[in-house]
């Protein structure tokens, strides 16, 4: 058993499962690739490339760019997490477009002839839903701004804590500080982070881990690179 695990990298059951599933996929792939195999493979591979290497980088970049643009504006902006009031309606509207773009842009031109239905309303529907989403978001933001009082103070206080904790955390993991009780609190605990005993998940990093925490990476909230460096 042990030699097998060393050679293969997992237990024999893992190998059996993988072989079974790959054989099933092979069997189905014969039918899938019978006609125009190249075109079908392009569609299949395109699904991976199109999402992971095109769509996702694009929307992450858009998110980061907006954050970067507003970050350098004069600091009249409230400390509320305003980005979500922009992010959520934009993303929801984008998802609707992603799913229904053929109807919205009237791509299937034969549709009215086959179904006796019009393609005209969809663009209007999508714009109206998008408008409603942004209005709702604006209203929610206005409500938050209206009663921000102590909530913003609390947010400021706790995020300031977060920055200090993070800095300490960095120095500790880099071996510059003895472990202190002031660490990022586990969100499982609802009490304020200061004065917590170290949560189980964040006990001092295991041996060998420190390389994964170069000190320059530790100053949370202080970006080192251009905005696209930060793929949240």
């Amino acid at each position, binding site marked *: 058993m042990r030699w097998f695990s060393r050679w293969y990298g997992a237990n024999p059951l893992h190998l059996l499962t993988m072989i079974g599933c790959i054989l099933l996929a092979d069997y189905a792939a014969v039918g899938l690739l019978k006609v125009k195999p190249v075109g079908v493979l392009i569609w299949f591979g395109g699904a991976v490339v199109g999402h992971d290497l095109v769509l996702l980088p694009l929307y992450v970049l858009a998110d980061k760019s907006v954050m970067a643009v507003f970050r350098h504006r004069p600091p009249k902006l409230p400390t509320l997490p305003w980005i979500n009031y922009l992010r959520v309606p934009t993303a*929801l509207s984008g*998802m609707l477009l*992603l799913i229904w773009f053929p109807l919205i842009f009237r791509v299937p031109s034969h549709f009215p002839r*086959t179904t006796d239905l019009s393609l005209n309303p969809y663009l209007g529907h999508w714009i109206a839903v998008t408008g409603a989403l942004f209005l709702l978001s604006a209203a929610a933001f206005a409500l938050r701004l209206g009663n921000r009082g102590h909530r913003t103070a609390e947010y400021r*206080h706790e995020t300031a804590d977060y920055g200090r904790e993070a800095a300490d955390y960095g120095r500790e993991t880099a071996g510059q500080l003895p472990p202190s009780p002031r660490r990022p609190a586990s969100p499982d605990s609802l009490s304020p982070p200061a004065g917590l005993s170290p949560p189980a998940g964040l006990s001092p990093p295991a041996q060998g*881990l420190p390389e994964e925490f170069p000190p320059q*990476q530790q100053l*949370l909230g202080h970006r080192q690179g251009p905005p696209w460096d*930060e793929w949240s």
Partner: protein
Amino acid sequence: MRDPSAPPGPFRRSFWRSPVRGPWLTSVFGLLLLVGIPVMFATGLLSYAAYNPNLSPFNDTTPGKGLLGFYLFSWPTHPIWLYRLTQGVHVTLGVTLVPILLFKLWSVLPKLFEWPSLRSFAHAFERFSLFLVVGGAGFEFVTGILNIQTWYPFPTSFYTLHFYGAWVFIAGFVAHVAVKFPVMVRALRSRSFIAEMRTNLARTRPEPPDAGYLAPVAPATPTISRRGVLAFAGAGSALVAALSAGQSLGGVFRKTALLAPHDQPVTGADAGTVGDFQINNTARNARIDAAETGETWRLTFGTDDQGSHAFKKLSRADLLRMEQHTASLPIACVEGWSTDNQTWTGIRLRDLAALAGVANPSSVLVQSLQHGGGFNKAVLSGTQLMDPDSLLALQVNGADLSLDHGYPARVIVPNNPGVHNTKWVGSLTFRS
């Protein structure tokens, strides 16, 4: 960053800085898909069974299925709303899962760039299964979503792609679940869901780096809480569902389906009449010639059992003089939309079989006047044609069928996929 020699950029763990990304969050999305995907797969298999593909090559859109049709069974006629339900669920759940799938893929993106890319044979197999599951998911969702909008830019038939693609996808899915299920359970247990739901942004802390590869080692300041991410994805799903489910629910809900292909009253000749319900193939599109459906139209019916060729012809007036039956049945399309029950009146198919001299029919081949088109003929099973509610309908909702609903006569069978309820029927060939 398992290997310090990883090339810079996304291959290093420190590149991925989202403070909310981590095994727990991924596992919540994984759990949702673990429930949703099997429902999608099962309802998809049921839809294939609903065409009764083993009955005739005319019914089988994927004749090379081989062992993949192992589960097929004779599709029942009751409950009459079964196909309406299963296919409505298949399509509505499909679009509803899109936001969940997108969030899940976002949450695991660092794994795509994991370094070293291949650690062992086991790891190589796993990565290949991931190609199947990610490629398969994209492939199935894209082909399905384009098909329900009647756009077919595919290299080959939608049925071929969506059917075989589903099996490739599910093979990768099973492998992925087998490997990751224990990881998911461990990650879900690592944090309390209720506590997460009570953790606001200010108190949100990253999952600890040793929780797993997906947890950030150099997290940025959070801009959203974990409960915020879940609410974000949930709002996406709720919105997509709310804007499309109405085309399957029908009634007043159809008006809420602002972004779904069959969300409006029809615009043609049926608008505002008793025939004002959804169709997918107008007479104009099917190139039905008015002359063919006029006074000269005759229903040809009979049997070709044992090489015999005994066929009779009846005019529409002859048919109207026969015993009429009424059945209240919906039309349910493979594209997920359906109509409310409509009141159909016509002659029972089993009465026509008896008139043709076939005492115990096992099937009937229904041929349309439509020239060409994938579904201008269909074979119904003995169960289907012997059902007392299976009709050759001449009227709907108290009025003669309109041309778009299949005048002079159409088939309507309970719980039958819409495309097998053949319109503009020209002939019926019963076989015992």
